[in-house]
């Protein structure tokens, strides 16, 4: 794995882009959940 990455450096860039994208997606999913809970609360009054 390490050797492969050292030889194919473009995949390190891919890994970094995926990490950033994954972090943003996780954040959005959490926000989505929070909004859904709020909607439920507001519906109940």
């Amino acid at each position, binding site marked *: 794995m390490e050797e492969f*990455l*050292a030889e194919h*450096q*473009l995949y*390190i*860039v*891919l*890994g*970094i*882009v995926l*990490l*950033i994208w994954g*972090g*943003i997606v996780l*954040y959005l999913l959490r*926000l989505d959940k*929070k*909004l859904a809970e*709020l909607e439920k*609360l*507001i519906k109940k*009054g």
Partner: protein
Amino acid sequence: MTYVKYGSIILITLVIVAGIGIPMSLEPAGFFEFPLIPGLEDKARNIFFHVPTAWTSVLAFLVGTFFGIRYLRTKNIEDDYKSVSAAGLGLLFCILATVTGALWAKFNWGTFWNWDPRQTSIFILLLIYGAYFALRSAIESDEKRASLSAVFVMPRMTAGLHPGARDDPSGKGPLMQSGMIAGNMRVFFYLSLLGFTLLFIWLLNLRIRAARLEHEHSRQQH
């Protein structure tokens, strides 16, 4: 906000495509070839992704500090949740910058972590804001929940492994001025900074709206 939203999506998509897709060559010819820097090679492309996350983190903490100070003066709860929303996003991008930096470090410096000055300062930053959120969640009352804010600088004070640090034998001054970065790379780098900034504004807007709803709802309850 429409421009911010679609602007960020388009810019970041463009930067991903260009940042990964544009070939590298030792003697770049024309706009659509990046220079190949020995020792950095394809990893130089990380500049388009890793650096803007750190930039966004700093920006977010500054915005958080601004609204934190404003809250202390106005005691307007709106300022408080603007501050905490920005700080939360700052923490997100700070973690992303740390993790992506560690991955890059592994293949440029040999290990994931080696206490480079900037790694040390980002670690302290994570601790500060980790403490900030631990403290906040421990205090129930809205008013007592004072806004803690920290002003910080991540200067190029000390020699370190980051290129462009003071006393860096390879480069004089900041990386962006050292001529190592070609004009066309700089264009995409700035577009990336802009894209990430717009993304931050969009996320902050979403986050503030959620906080406002939450606050209004809890007020109706009492």
